């Protein structure tokens, strides 16, 4: 009478899409249009409540799919302002040298719009539900998929996940479906893992790991309330125009990365993206680095005197050059978007959602094609092939970078470049290059950007020297006071999953997990209200420093999965942090 998980008869759909972000939406819409019975499972209380973006979404001219092509009406209903002007600011103290990189931005760009994920994803989810419902499936929110269903050689179907601790290898057997927290297991012929940067499915399949900080960036963002009129006036734009600004130089205490500012309809997105290994190495307090940008005098002209932060958020960003899985599939399972590390972040270029859209649609097409040939099990291989054929993999893992990084990302080359740049000769070269217009061209060049080494030189040293040699002093004074970390946490919405902590600290030594205290965007040294804190414990007269954890204020960014020794999963459906802006 009561449903149990032990029966052999599982609910079945042709396709299960896990996650209703842009990758999942693109996959589901494409599957549904091809008549594939598709169910979409989203763990947030609403689509878009679990992720954040910087964020711009691109429609590339060279891409086979764009989001407005797949979901007509996207730009009218789901996005904010288009990017009509793009600038990069090199900063040294109060000196700033700005380059207009609009032309470089426009290369291969059909359009690029600022977006807020809650609005964008929940609009897409409604369209996707309509499309998939017609196939006999549909979209459900508040359902967390927590593992894979596998069939062993004797035909027994059972749940398996990496953390189940079973005797036999949990990865034995063919993937035939998914297991869920809120539903009984579901079998499917095709499973799209579009479950984000901390994909539990990618982990369960052993396709991604969260080991090396070098493979990741961390983004921290504030959504700042500002009436549309004020945006128009302060940026000198009309309602149908928008701006993007990037910031780099010496304002981040040497941490490798940069800042951004995008204009929405009636808010601004302001934040930073840093290499995670650099955050760890410099023991940087990322919320303070956000404040360093917000309170820089350059921003005073835009922020005015009243600062009202709508939302503080953070997100882990895979560095596709290193993290993109070149073969993102196993059996019936394919990885799409962040779940497969498909996030291109290189120099001033930050593109993720467009690649997720393309990958989602390609994965869906691969299944449709495989099914029509009577070989549904070949969908994964076909998807991988299409990623290469359509040039997606070349954008995610550019060959130019692989060659350049081999030469450029070592201490000798870096030290040489640093010393040369900082010498009178190097500084003269910077001035000469600007006179010749080369610097502006270089910043707008996608070729140079993909070759940029992940060292201090392009992120910190070069911008600082450019600003010192060529910049002008910003006259404005900043008057705003960003909220404290405690206030920021207090403003966030949580439906805490009481009694079910989703992160467990495996090793509480400072050596293993201490980096989380500073790198976690809702923790700080000397701050008691965050996730991670350092404590002194007395045992047998000895004093020991240990790390302790309280997951209540967790924003589920995934940083600690990499920098600390933890065991993690996501909160149950509808639980945990709920982003209202994203």
């Amino acid at each position, binding site marked *: 009478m009561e*449903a149990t998980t032990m029966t052999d008869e599982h609910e079945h759909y042709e396709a299960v899409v896990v996650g209703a972000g842009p990758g999942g939406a693109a996959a589901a819409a494409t599957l549904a249009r091809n008549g594939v019975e598709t169910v979409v499972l989203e763990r947030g209380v609403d689509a878009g409540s679990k992720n954040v973006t910087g964020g711009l979404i691109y429609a590339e001219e060279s891409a086979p799919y764009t989001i407005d092509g797949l979901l007509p009406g996207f730009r009218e209903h789901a996005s904010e302002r288009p990017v009509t002007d793009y600038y990069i600011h090199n900063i040294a103290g109060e000196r700033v040298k700005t380059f207009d990189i609009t032309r470089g931005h426009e290369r291969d760009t059909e359009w690029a719009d600022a977006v807020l994920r809650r609005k964008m994803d929940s609009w897409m989810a409604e369209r996707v539900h309509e499309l998939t*419902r017609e196939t006999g499936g*549909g979209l*459900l929110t508040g*359902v967390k998929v927590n593992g894979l269903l596998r069939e062993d050689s004797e035909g027994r179907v059972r749940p398996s996940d990496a953390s189940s601790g079973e005797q036999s290898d949990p990865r034995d057997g063919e993937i035939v479906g998914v297991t869920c927290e*809120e*539903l*009984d297991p579901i079998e499917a012929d095709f499973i799209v893992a579009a479950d984000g940067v901390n994909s539990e499915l990618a982990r369960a399949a052993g396709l991604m790991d969260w080991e090396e900080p070098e493979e990741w960036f961390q983004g921290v963002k504030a959504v700042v309330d500002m009436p549309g009129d004020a945006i128009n006036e302060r940026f000198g734009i009309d309602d149908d125009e928008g701006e993007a600004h990037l910031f780099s130089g010496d304002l981040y205490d040497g941490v490798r990365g940069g800042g951004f500012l995008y204009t929405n309809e009636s808010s601004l997105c302001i934040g930073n993206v840093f290499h995670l290994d650099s955050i760890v190495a410099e023991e940087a307090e990322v919320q303070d680095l956000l404040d360093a940008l917000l309170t820089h005098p350059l921003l005073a002209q835009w922020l005015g005197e009243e600062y009202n932060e709508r939302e503080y958020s953070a997100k882990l960003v895979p560095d596709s050059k290193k993290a993109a899985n070149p073969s993102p599939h196993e059996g019936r399972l394919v990885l799409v978007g962040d779940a497969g590390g498909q996030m291109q972040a290189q120099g001033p270029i930050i593109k993720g959602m467009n690649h997720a859209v393309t990958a989602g649609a390609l994965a869906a097409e691969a299944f449709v094609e495989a099914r029509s040939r009577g070989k549904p099990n070949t969908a994964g291989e076909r998807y991988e092939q299409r990623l290469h054929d359509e040039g997606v993999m070349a954008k995610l893992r550019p060959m130019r970078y692989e060659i350049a990084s081999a030469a450029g990302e070592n201490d000798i080359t870096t030290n040489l470049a640093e010393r040369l740049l900082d010498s009178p000769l190097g500084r003269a070269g910077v001035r000469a290059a600007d006179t010749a217009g080369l610097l502006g061209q270089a910043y707008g060049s996608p070729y140079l950007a993909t070759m940029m080494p992940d060292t201090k030189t392009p992120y910190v040293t070069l911008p600082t020297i450019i600003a010192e040699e060529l910049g002008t002093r910003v006259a404005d004074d900043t008057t705003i006071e960003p909220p404290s970390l405690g206030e920021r946490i207090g403003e966030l919405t949580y439906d805490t999953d009481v009694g079910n902590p989703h992160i467990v600290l495996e090793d509480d030594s400072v050596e293993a997990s201490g980096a989380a205290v500073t790198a976690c965007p809702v923790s700080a040294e000397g701050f008691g209200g965050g996730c991670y804190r350092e404590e002194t414990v007395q045992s047998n007269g000895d004093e020991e420093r240990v790390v302790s954890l309280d997951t209540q204020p967790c924003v589920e960014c995934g940083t600690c999965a990499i920098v600390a020794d933890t065991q993690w999963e996501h909160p149950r459906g509808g639980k945990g942090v709920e982003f209202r802006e994203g």
Partner: protein
Amino acid sequence: MHTVTLTKGVPDFREGQVSFDEDGHLERGNTPTVMNPNDKHALRTALQTKVRHGGRLSVMSMGPPGYGDVLGEAMESVYADELYLLSDRELAASDTWATAITIATGLQKLDETPDLVFAGFKTADGETGHTGPQACWCLDWPIITHVIALDVNEDEGTVRAKRLVEGDIEEIETVKAPMPAFVVADPEFEPTYRTAGDRLTLKDLRAETRERAKNHEEHLTTWDHADLNLDPDYIGLDGSPTIVSSVDPIPKAPAEREATMVNPGDEDGMNEVFDAMAAHAGGER
């Protein structure tokens, strides 16, 4: 499949809503009427049945014309298709006996005999728990009470249920009955929607009902005693053998401790609170 859920409007007993006169009598005129909170168990059972088996879901109540809004509320929570209100001056002041006769007559008048009738656990005002079973007795149908799980076999025309049996030890009994039948859900009943298919059906129903509930009057049928062909001598006050001789207010427990209000923004006040708490911090009282 056609199911009917019985519901009743009761005074909103929540703090701040309910109003009593100085003798402790309920002032109905100053207290809003809401759907009997205990009916939610019946509604949940009905909704689960509709999600799993489809079909028509009607909600029926007896009461003054103002109960239409209560039925609208029920429509929204159970995604009902139709609403029936048995309403007439002649029905006023009915006890559970007269109400049961009226309800049973209403159920018989429906164009399609219900397969299942879900009655509430008990009302928040009368708390008798009689009306459902008495209405069932009038119809001579089987009734299953204290239901915690339900399974309908449409082909067989039967309903199988697990019910809680309270005794020296709590037992769970599984029973089966032919339909039509009455079902009274226990407060322990928890609906389960463990398949994507069920949840998608729920989502469809929610979307459909959102539109329908805006104009719930259009889906409301009102029958008076003439429509039901009931003799006024057997309904309402005249048909009610129960006599309530008196009502005594339950005295409030006197508070022994003094309370002081402190604004959390008041630093001195908060310090006093902390000082007062600190004295007991060792676990003493």
